[in-house]
């Protein structure tokens, strides 16, 4: 009596329930089994595993999923035997039991048709046989420790049973849109509740006026001529005074009620808001707990030994981000085991413990969510990588020698890049890293890799906290509020106008013995000219060292914690803006993207178009030079191209990646765009595609300069709408300039 084919709806929901239970129970089961592998006789964990298997068996029977009953039953038997000390849970039984967990998921999967017979049934038979063999006495014989078993168990109890109840709480699904609306409404009710306070305050003023009125009546009464204290005027006054007193008391009572109402509703709205906010976040651990198992299994399969350490498990992460991280994290972990960790023999030889440790860490840092995947393996051989890059003719030997470590490591993220052919001891680490980068980029994040020879490799994912609270400095620019994330600021100061000095027409100030150039926020954000009023300038110092700028804003409005809200995705990335938020009074505020802002300041400074607060610098070129936009994320390539073009008389603007390029190309006019293909945030192909869709940019010539020299890459570039495709492999001065002149003619004229 197979249930999977039954079109009975009630049966359907029962199966769904089973699946939900399976999800939580198998989590608990896996966790317990993994711990048991290290401490095979731990009573609380044996108990937890047994209980999970037992309840799964019971539920499977209720939904009449007989194959699942068989599997769960066999697992339970095995665990009971271990509890009684007749079986020691060495690696073989644990392997078999873990396979059982997978098998249960397979049986419960709606896609698995006819579990009674067919391939699944065969798998079940195979599993039962394997489990029986693994649990056979001769397997268990080597460490025959039945009488000793209770001993360590007695030591164990304080380590507490598995947190089954915690993860056993029922989860429900809810759409992201409705969650966002819920959060919006909760925030709105908070704002509404806050209006009660000013209202109550206005009533307090009314009460004071009542008191003044009473005093006035008293003084009128005091001026009555002697002998008329009991006359009609006095009596009328008495009546008025009484009525006023009644009114005052009634007001008093209402006011007390209002106070209580204010307190209650503010408290309620606050709780509602915080709870809604918290429910969007999930602890990091929820999303990554399952990897402990993946790491162990994969390491075993590769003849290695590895353990996963999760740090910062309680760090709150936005649900959406956590979901999207699943694939890239899995990929990086597999990579770390496969390519990062050495074999046990090698590790012993290097004086490291045989068991490799992979650290998965989450933390909030500088307004970003950072996730680190750290292995303690051999690290990446940079010399070999440089060699591989050259032998694969991605770049000339000279240029390769000049690449920084970071630029060199960036090659790992090129599609299809592998070091396998070139070197044998560091095998193809690059495989699939481009996929990781693509996925991370989709959540507007960055991935970076650092390595230390002999000590390991670290992958750092930096992701935005789409919905998280960040601390900001509120400032006013052009009459509107902007929030600068505190993490991006060095300091704030007020500078008297006299302290501003000019050098080559550019304003700067002295700060701690350093000269800091001033730029106005108006100019960076394209909001027109700053009004020169007031004696002091409000300056925010951003960036550090030689790259520091003093950002002049109109006014400081204080520090504020804001809940980051994404902007309408249709707007695309707005240059210099990261997100939006609501202030206490419900007015919107924009959160500034500090990285973008620094880049903008850099570019303005490089282009010499910084006007700062001293007004326009004048000196317009007599003859218009052709303008070229160079888009490349590598500083070396970018500067090389810039110098080259500049040398030939072209006016050059630069953009540091596709997104930046897209912003620049829309806001200024150019005669040509020269772009790289592989770039963070937005690649060259996407940039060209976007430009070709834009009516104003459709006819702007585009040249692609890329490392990729395969025919299909060329095709892809030209198909997207590029006018010319130049490979960096054949990157000679003349070729580039020749191609530019072919496309748009000489620089002047």
């Amino acid at each position, binding site marked *: 009596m197979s249930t999977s084919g039954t079109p009975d709806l009630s049966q359907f929901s029962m199966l769904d329930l089973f699946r939900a239970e399976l999800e939580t129970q198998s989590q608990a089961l896996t966790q317990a089994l993994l711990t048991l592998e290290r401490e095979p006789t731990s009573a609380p964990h044996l108990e937890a595993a047994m209980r999970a298997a037992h309840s799964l068996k019971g539920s499977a029977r209720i939904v009449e999923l007989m194959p699942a009953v068989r599997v769960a039953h066999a697992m339970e038997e095995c665990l009971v035997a271990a509890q009684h000390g007749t079986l020691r849970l060495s690696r073989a039984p644990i392997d078999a039991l873990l396979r059982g967990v997978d098998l249960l998921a397979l049986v419960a999967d709606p896609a698995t048709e006819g579990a009674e017979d067919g391939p699944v049934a065969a798998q079940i038979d195979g599993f039962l046989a394997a489990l029986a063999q693994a649990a056979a006495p001769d397997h268990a014989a080597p460490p025959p420790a039945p009488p000793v078993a209770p001993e360590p168990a007695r030591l164990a109890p304080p380590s507490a049973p598995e947190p089954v109840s915690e993860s056993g709480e029922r989860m429900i699904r809810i759409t992201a849109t409705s969650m966002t609306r819920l959060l919006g409404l909760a925030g709105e009710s908070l704002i509404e509740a806050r209006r009660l306070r000013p209202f109550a305050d206005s009533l307090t003023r009314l009460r004071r006026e009542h008191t003044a009125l009473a005093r006035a009546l008293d003084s009128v009464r005091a001026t009555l001529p002697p002998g008329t204290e009991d006359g009609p005027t006095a009596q009328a006054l008495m009546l008025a005074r009484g009525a006023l007193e009644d009114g005052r008391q009634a007001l008093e009572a209402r006011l007390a009620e209002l106070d209580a109402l204010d307190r209650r509703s503010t408290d309620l709205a606050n709780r509602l808001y915080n709870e809604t906010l918290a429910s969007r976040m999930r602890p990091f651990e929820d999303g990554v707990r399952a990897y402990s198992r993946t790491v162990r299994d994969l390491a075993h399969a590769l003849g290695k030994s590895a353990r996963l350490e999760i740090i910062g498990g309680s760090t709150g992460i936005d649900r959406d981000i956590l979901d999207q991280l699943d694939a890239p994290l899995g990929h990086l972990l597999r990579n770390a085991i496969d390519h990062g960790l050495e074999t046990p023999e090698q590790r012993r030889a290097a004086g490291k413990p045989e068991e490799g440790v992979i650290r998965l860490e989450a933390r909030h840092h500088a307004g970003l969510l950072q996730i680190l995947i750290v292995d303690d393996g051999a690290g990446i051989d940079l010399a070999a990588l440089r060699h591989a890059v050259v032998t694969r003719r991605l770049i000339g030997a000279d240029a390769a020698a000049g690449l920084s470590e970071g630029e060199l490591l960036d090659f790992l993220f090129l599609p299809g890049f592998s070091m396998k052919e070139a070197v044998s001891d560091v095998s193809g680490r690059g495989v699939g890293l481009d996929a990781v980068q693509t996925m991370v980029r989709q959540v507007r994040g960055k991935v970076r890799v650092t390595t230390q020879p002999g000590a390991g490799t670290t992958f750092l994912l930096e992701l935005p906290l789409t919905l998280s609270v960040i601390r900001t400095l509120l400032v006013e620019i052009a009459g509107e509020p902007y929030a600068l994330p505190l993490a991006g600021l060095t300091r704030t100061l007020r500078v008297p106008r006299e302290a501003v000095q000019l050098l080559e027409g550019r304003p700067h100030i002295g700060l701690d013995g350093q000269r800091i150039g001033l730029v106005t926020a108006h100019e960076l954000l394209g909001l027109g000219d700053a009004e020169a009023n007031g004696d002091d300038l409000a300056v925010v110092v951003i960036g550090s060292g030689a790259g520091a700028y003093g950002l002049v804003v109109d006014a400081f409005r204080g520090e504020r914690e804001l809940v980051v809200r994404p902007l309408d995705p249709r707007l695309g990335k707005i240059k210099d803006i990261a997100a939006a938020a609501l202030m206490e009074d419900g007015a*919107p505020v924009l959160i500034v993207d500090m990285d973008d802002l620094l880049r903008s300041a850099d570019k303005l400074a490089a282009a010499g178009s910084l006007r700062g607060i001293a007004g326009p610098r004048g000196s317009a070129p007599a003859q218009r030079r052709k303008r070229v936009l160079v888009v490349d994320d590598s500083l070396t390539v970018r500067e090389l191209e810039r110098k080259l073009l500049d040398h030939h008389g072209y006016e050059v603007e630069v953009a540091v990646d596709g997104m930046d390029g897209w912003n620049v190309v829309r806001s200024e006019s150019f005669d040509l765009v020269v772009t790289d293909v592989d770039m963070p945030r937005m690649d060259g192909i996407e940039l060209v595609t976007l430009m070709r869709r834009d009516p104003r940019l459709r006819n702007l010539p585009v040249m692609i300069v890329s490392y990729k020299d395969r025919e299909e890459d060329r095709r892809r570039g030209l198909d997207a709408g590029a006018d010319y495709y130049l490979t960096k492999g054949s990157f000679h001065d003349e070729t580039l300039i020749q191609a530019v002149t072919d496309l748009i003619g000489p620089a002047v004229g």
Partner: protein
Amino acid sequence: MAAPDDDIKPDAPAAGTSAGAGGLLARPLPEGYRAEWARHIAAPRRETEAAQASAAKVLIFRLGREWLALPAGLVTEITEPRRSHSLPHRRDRLVRGIVNVRGELLVKVALGELLGTAEASDGERGTGFARLVVIGDAERRRVAFEADEVHGLHRCMEAELRPLPATVERAGSRFTDALIDWQGHAVGRLDGPALLDALGRGLA
């Protein structure tokens, strides 16, 4: 339209009801009355259904000097205008910034820019109050725009529709698909989905 109902028993008039009124209520039904009503109710509601199908509810509002109508189904909210925040680096005149509506940050657009409506001169400003109108549907995200005046919902019948003038009809891009005769104004009926699509494209 009350159907005859023989459950009403007029034999027990409430205290204080005059005998005359009691008699009026208790009078016997005329011949064929019940049969006629039974036929009426049993008849299929062909005409009314047709009338309702052609009658679509629209929201009538004013932008500058033009009165316009939007399918009511697309309008999710009409509220007081509130402070918006401009977006830096946006040079187009369509996107006016972001605005908070019930805790949701929406893009505020100048609908008149898209439609090319004429600005109202001072004399024509009228007495209405400006309103923030939020539009959107299941597939398309919501946007907000400010109308100079909102009349409210109007059920518009097929018979009220007029063809567009040739100057509008022949123009390349247009969003009005018909004119509605309403209180002496010719109100342009907007093609909602097309308008929302165009707004979506305009934001990018």
